């Protein structure tokens, strides 16, 4: 718009003045602080406030420069809005004071002594540099800021990779590069991940799932370990301060307030490299805790709207974190929708993984809804239409919905049953073959109508043992968390192979490496969407800690020297990920039909045992093999090799008979976890021919994968 036209609009001039600040009535939509010509439009909603004051600070100042009460005529419905002119938008921070009743039983906790962060703040100051000691005397700790929204995306576009073609890599932003061995210039930041894109490409992952990056306070509930003296912090960050603001302390440029641009730059470059970005979003609770917690934002703005409250005004705690966001309240539902739309459009995000998503299906009294409006809204939203929506389909209040999460044809799930079955089978538990056959097919027993793409398959994630620890510890060892080893899960289905923790025993160590490769193999030849926890490809350990939420130490940091020490694991993981990308037969969108519908002479999938066409389903069986017919890949729409997986979780070596191939084809050995490197996995396209075509010895607790062509 030409400048003179802007100047001609009468609403770009102030009508009011207060202590030298000029302002006029604002616009209620959009909520939050929005840059408008000559000024900033501030808009905030509260269903029960009786007054509202805009508090403006200079950046980092302890005292406000001005507190402008909203004139009563500036309120539209329950929204206070005003445009303030001539602000130095980079140099201000703002908050609100809300007047209203202090009546906890009625659900109201207004307190005018508090300065409240805007629930729609696009950036939040106060924790600009990771673990820099804050000024606790400052009345306003988490300080809403303005953000420019004119990032130059050039021709960036969402890769829109079909979900069945994704290999997801779950990562903690800081853990990935904080270790001195990472060799990056700004360890622990968004910029550092960008520096490591070549590594991600080499590994072959094409979906990066970032653990929470909404602003949180790493100092929240900080304490010293009573014995070791270690400072324990809110490291993982599953405790949101503001849903629209990226974490400043994760940006190398956070000290300059440029985290917004730095994160966008990372996403833009990941896209350029064919990697999608999925955010782990925490909408189930906030950082305000229960009735004993701090008043930071939501509680003081509109407690009754934002939280699920008991009839006597306390907080329902379905999250295990003190409070529960009132997600199916119509207003909060819109906040969640606005938030996701903002991240999808302004940050070009490709998907979201919803922490404790079952909470999003509860009504304001906590009852599970059969048709939760929030989940339905998200599933049908025009802006989110091509984003991946992934649910952690359970909550801390006992709602477990794996297989039954309200999906509306859109939602995928973290498949906890996949994790449990694979772990049990790998430790040679009996009675698992039937279950395993479902899991490698994309769990048709759970997702009959939703297809294998509903299943996010994983063996490990941030929550629980690392892959190395899964095969090195029978029990959790969480003493370092300072909770007497009472925290963290007890049902890990882990097995140490004969010794708890580190050992010099070469037999045990070799078994552990084999088991890691076994787990990766099953994960990457299963239908569904595989997810790998960052570092597992190199045998990262947490010394048996299965709940490392509070450690900003080497326990969480990825030690890059592992790539050399465990070069065989990395090589194995890398080759297998590329194997998956090379074979469409492993990435079907629809379930198998267990029949031959293309006339190849083979069903799309068939099950076998040590003998071809004879799977041992008995309780004591630890053997399972399957054959994917390459002519049925993606419903027969593309041609692929035949793929055979032979899994022996028996403690003895066994001879397996792969089925005969069509005339003229031969079996080639892609991988054999029973062999030491470099014979464990071969280069794609250069796999050696199997010497005896219908007989291969599979070592104890080993897996072979053959390709037929």
């Amino acid at each position, binding site marked *: 718009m030409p400048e003179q036209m802007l100047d001609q609009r009468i609403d770009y001039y102030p009508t009011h003045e207060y202590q030298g600040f000029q302002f006029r009535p604002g616009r209620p939509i959009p909520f939050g602080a929005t840059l408008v010509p000559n000024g900033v439009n501030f808009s905030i909603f509260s269903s029960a406030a009786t007054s509202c004051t805009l508090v403006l600070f200079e950046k980092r100042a302890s005292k406000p420069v001005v507190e402008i009460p909203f004139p009563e005529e500036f309120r539209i419905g329950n929204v206070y809005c005003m445009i303030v002119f001539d602000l*130095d938008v*980079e140099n201000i921070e703002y908050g609100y004071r809300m007047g209203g009743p202090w009546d906890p039983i009625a659900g109201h906790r207004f307190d005018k002594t508090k300065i409240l962060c805007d629930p729609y703040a696009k950036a939040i100051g106060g924790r600009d540099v990771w673990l820099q000691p804050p000024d606790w005397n400052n009345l306003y700790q988490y300080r809403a800021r303005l953000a*420019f929204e004119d990032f*130059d995306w050039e021709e960036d576009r969402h890769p829109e990779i079909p979900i069945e073609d994704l290999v997801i890599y779950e990562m903690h932003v800081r853990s990935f590069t904080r270790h001195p061995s990472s060799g990056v210039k700004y360890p622990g930041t968004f*910029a550092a991940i*960008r520096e490591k894109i070549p590594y991600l490409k080499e590994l072959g992952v094409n979906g990066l799932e970032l653990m929470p990056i909404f602003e949180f306070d790493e100092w929240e509930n900080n304490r010293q370990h009573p014995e070791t003296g270690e400072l324990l912090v809110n490291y993982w960050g599953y405790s949101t301060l503001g849903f629209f603001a990226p974490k400043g302390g994760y940006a190398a440029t956070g000290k*300059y307030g440029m985290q917004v*641009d730095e994160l966008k*730059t990372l996403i833009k*470059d990941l896209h350029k490299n064919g990697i999608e970005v999925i955010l782990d979003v925490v909408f189930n609770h906030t950082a305000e805790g229960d009735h004993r917690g701090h008043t930071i934002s939501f509680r003081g703005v509109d407690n009754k709207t934002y939280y699920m409250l008991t009839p006597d005004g306390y907080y329902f705690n379905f999250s295990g974190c003190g409070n529960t966001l009132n997600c199916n309240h119509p207003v909060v539902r819109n906040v969640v929708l606005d938030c996701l739309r903002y991240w999808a459009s302004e940050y070009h995000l490709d998907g979201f993984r919803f922490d404790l998503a079952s909470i999003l299906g509860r009504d304001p009294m906590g009852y599970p809804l059969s048709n939760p409006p929030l989940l339905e809204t998200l599933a049908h939203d025009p802006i989110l239409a091509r984003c991946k929506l992934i649910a952690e389909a359970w909550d801390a209040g006992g709602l477990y919905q794996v297989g039954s999460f309200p999906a509306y044809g859109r939602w995928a799930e973290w498949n906890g049953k996949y994790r449990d079955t694979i772990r049990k089978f790998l430790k040679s538990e009996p009675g698992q073959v039937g279950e395993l056959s479902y899991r490698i097919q994309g769990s048709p027993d759970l997702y009959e109508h939703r297809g294998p793409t509903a299943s996010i398959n994983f063996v490990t994630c941030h929550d629980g043992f690392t892959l190395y620890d899964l095969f090195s510890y029978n029990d959790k060892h969480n003493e370092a968390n300072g909770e007497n080893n009472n925290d963290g899960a007890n049902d890990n289905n882990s097995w140490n192979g004969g010794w708890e923790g580190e050992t010099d025993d070469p037999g045990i160590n070799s078994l552990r490496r084999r088991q890691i490769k076994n787990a990766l193999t099953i994960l990457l030849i299963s239908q569904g969407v595989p997810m790998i926890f960052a570092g597992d490809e190199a045998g990262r350990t947490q010394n048996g800690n299965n709940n490392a939420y509070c450690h900003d130490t080497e326990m969480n940091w990825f030690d890059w020297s592992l790539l050399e020490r465990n070069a065989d694991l990395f090589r194995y993981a890398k080759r297998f990920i590329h194997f998956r990308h090379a074979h469409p037969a492993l990435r079907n969108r629809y379930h198998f039909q267990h029949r031959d519908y293309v006339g190849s002479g083979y069903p799309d999938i068939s099950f076998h045992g040590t003998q071809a066409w004879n799977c041992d389903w008995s309780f004591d069986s630890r053997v399972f093999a399957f054959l994917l017919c390459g002519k049925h890949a993606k419903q027969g729409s593309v041609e692929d090799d035949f793929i055979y997986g032979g899994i022996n979780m028996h403690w003895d070596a066994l001879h397996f008979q792969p089925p005969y191939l069509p005339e003229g084809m031969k079996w080639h050995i892609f991988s054999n976890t029973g062999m030491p490197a470099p014979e464990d996995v071969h280069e794609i396209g250069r796999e050696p021919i199997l010497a005896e075509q219908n007989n291969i010895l599979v070592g104890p607790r080993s897996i072979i994968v053959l390709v037929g062509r």
Partner: protein
Amino acid sequence: MQVTIKSINGVVLIELEGSLDGKTAPEVQKQVLPSAEGQNKVILDMTRVHYISSAGLRVLLLLYRQLKAKGGKIVLVGMMEEIRDVMSNTGLLNFFLIADSPKGGIEALG
């Protein structure tokens, strides 16, 4: 913030000195954009810029966009390491040609 604008053999040389932030950016923009108008070779000497904020970065990007629209080129010269890193981390560095000195800048412009 000091802005000096010179013209050397058809190349516009803009020298900045001081802090390019929300306070100074509008003024710098007012001076710099017109001086580059209609030009196709611009050197921006940042040797004496010790701080640059988001608003400052946006002035540089505007300048780039204005030149690029008309087929012009711009070289940034003499950036301090910290400023260079900020520009790299926020994705701006990719847009610009970079040189150590004005002389190198002229070479980069070809």
